[in-house]
C-alpha cells in the first residue's frame, strides 16, 4: 500500500492504483485517477457512467454488471469501451473509487 496525493488530499492506494477507502472518493480523486486510465478529460458522458457505478456500489457493495451500466445510462457497449479504453473494471470502476474487483482483472 502507498499514499498518493489527490490534489492536496493524501489517500491510500493499492499497487494497481485503486483507492482503498471508497468513502474518501470525490470528484478531484476521480479526475486524477482518470489520467492513469487514458481518460484525459472527464466529460458529462463519463460522469454519467462514473456516478451510476458509484451509486450502485454504495447501495450494493459491489460493482454493477456492465449490462446494468448500459441499461441505466442508456449507452451501448461500444460507447462504454470508447469512453473508458481500459475497460469497465480497471477504467470506469477504478475512477469511480471502487476497490479492485475479484477474479481475472
Amino acid at each position, binding site marked *: 500500500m502507498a499514499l498518493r496525493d489527490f490534489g492536496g488530499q493524501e489517500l491510500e492506494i493499492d499497487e494497481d492504483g485503486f483507492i482503498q477507502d471508497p468513502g474518501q472518493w470525490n470528484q478531484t480523486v476521480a479526475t486524477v485517477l482518470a489520467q492513469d486510465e487514458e481518460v484525459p478529460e472527464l466529460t458529462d458522458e463519463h460522469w454519467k457512467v462514473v456516478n451510476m457505478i458509484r451509486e450502485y456500489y454504495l447501495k450494493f457493495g459491489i460493482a454493477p454488471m456492465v*449490462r446494468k451500466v448500459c441499461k441505466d445510462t442508456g449507452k451501448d457497449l461500444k460507447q462504454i469501451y470508447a469512453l473508458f479504453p481500459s*475497460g469497465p473494471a480497471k477504467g470506469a470502476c477504478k475512477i469511480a473509487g471502487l476497490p479492485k474487483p475479484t477474479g481475472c482483472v
Partner: protein
Amino acid sequence: MVDTIDSRPKGAVGEAAMKVLDSKLTRQMAVNMHACVHCGQCFESCHYYLATRDPKVTPAYKAEQLRKLYKRRHDWLGQLAPGWVHATQPTDEQIAALYEAAFGNCTMCRRCNLSCPMGLDMALMMRTARWMLTSQGLIPPGLKATIDTHLATGNNMGITREEFLETVDWLQEELQKELDDPDFRISVDRPGTEFLICLNPREVKFYPLLFMAQFKTCYAAGLDVGLSSAYWDATNYGLFSGDDAACKQIVTKTIDEAVRLGAKTLILTECGHGYRVYRWEAPGWYGKPMPVNVISYIELAAEQIRRGRIKVDKKRNTERVTYHDPCNQARSGGIIDEPRYILSKVVMDFQDMEPHGENNFCCGGGGGALTMSEFRDRRLAAAKVKADQIVATDAKIVATSCHNCIDQLSEIGKHYKLGVKVMNLCELVANAIVLPPKAVTVAVQEIGERPVAVDADGFIEDTSLWSPEAAVFLARRQGFGDVLERLTPDQWRVVDFTRAYYGRFGVPPMRETVCAELQLSKRQFGTLFPGTLKTLYRTAGLSREVVHKVAAE
C-alpha cells in the same frame, strides 16, 4: 488487513506448514526435493531472472527455499549437518522467504521445467509451497478473495443467478440483431444440451463482446450449445493457491452440473488455467472417470474452420497480428497448433514471436499474479522479456486466449508504451466469420403463397395486389417445377431489383442490366429464371401491357 508472518505469534506457523508438506510428499515431490544438481540451466529460462539478473529469483534459488525445509526434516544429512547442506528449521524468516519465492517471484509458468536436465517440476514445488502457506492463512488477499467468492457464490466475481440471466437475455437480443436472426436463442439449463459452455465471469460481468463472439462462432457452425445458470465459471483459482479441496469442490460442481443437463462436452472459454484445470487436472480431483469431454473454444473453432463448417474471410483482419501462448494452455495444455491454424485463416498478416509455443515466455500474469497487487512492480519488471518479444514482431495486435494474459499484456502495452492493441482470439475469429445466408432462407421459406387473379398469359391482372406471397404463387404456377417451387434468396434479389428498377424508370430491366447490376452470368440468370425474361417479369408482378410494350420496342 494483509495477513503476514509478522502478524503472527513468533514461530506459530512453521511446524503446521511443515505438516502440510509432509502430507504432500509423493514420490514425485521427493524426487523434486532431492534431484536438483545445481547446474544453473534453469536460470536463463526464467523471465524474472532475465529481466532483473537477480540470483534470488532464479528457479533453483526459489526451489531451494522449500528444499532447505525439506532437508532439515527428512534428509539424514540435513538433520546431522544442516549447515553443510543448507538445511533450515521452519523459522519465521524462512517461511517469509518461502512466501516471497512462491507468491512474489514465480508465476508457476513451468518454463524452467523444460530446461531442467533432471526433469524437475518447479510448478509442483511452488504450488506445494503455496499450499503450505495458504493453509496457514498466509495468502495474498486478492487471491484469497477470488477463491472465497467462487466457493461462496459459484463464480469468482459473485455474479448472482438473476444478473447472469439478465445478461444472457440482453446478449441474446444483441446477437439476434448481429446475426440478423430473430429466432436465435441462447439456451439456459436445457436438458440434453450437447455442448455446455463455461465462461470466464469477466466475460459476463465486464466483457460481453467476448461472450457474443463465442456464441457467434457456435451459431455459424450450427452447434447445439447452451449454458448452465448455476455452475458456468471456467476458472479455478485453487490451482494458484495450491488448495486441492477448493479445486475439487469447484470442478465437481461444474462437472456434476454438466452430467445433470446431459451434456456430452464442456467447452472452455479462452481461459488459460481453466482449460488446464478441466482438461488435465480435473480427472484427479473429480475422483471418478470423467463423464464429459473437455475442449477449448480454440480447439472447437479450429476444428469447425478446418471442416468448412465455419466460413471465414481473413481480409477482415488486415493488421499484423502476433500471438501470445498462455502458459497453462500451451506448455501445460498442448494447445499450440490450433491458434496458429486459426490465425492462418482469419488474419492477413501473422507473425509469431520468438520463442513461442511450448517455449513461450510467461507474460508475467500467470499463477494468479494479477490478483496480487502487492507484487505489481515485480510483475511489470519481469514482463520486460515479453515486451521485447512483442516489439520484435512489429505487430499491431497481440492476440491471446486467456483473461489473465489479456490484462497483463494490456498493462505491458501501457507500461512499456508499445502502442499495440490486445485482443482475444475469439474476437478476431468472430470478426472474420462470414455467415451463411441461412437466416434469410428461413425467412423466405416462411413466406406463404397467396393466389391472385392472372390473365391468359400468366401476368397479374391487378398489379396493386402484388405481394411476396403473390410472387410465390406467380412463380410456381409457371410450370418450371422445383426451380420456382420456392424462391431462393438469389431469386429474391433479382425480383427485388426488377421491381425497384421498374419503380424508378417505369420500364422493366433487360437481362443484361440485371446481370450487370447483380453480377450474375447469363447462365446463372437462366438457372434462376428459366425460359424467357417473362418468367421473371411475371414473378415480379409487372403487367402484361408494360412487358409487351418493351417487347414491341
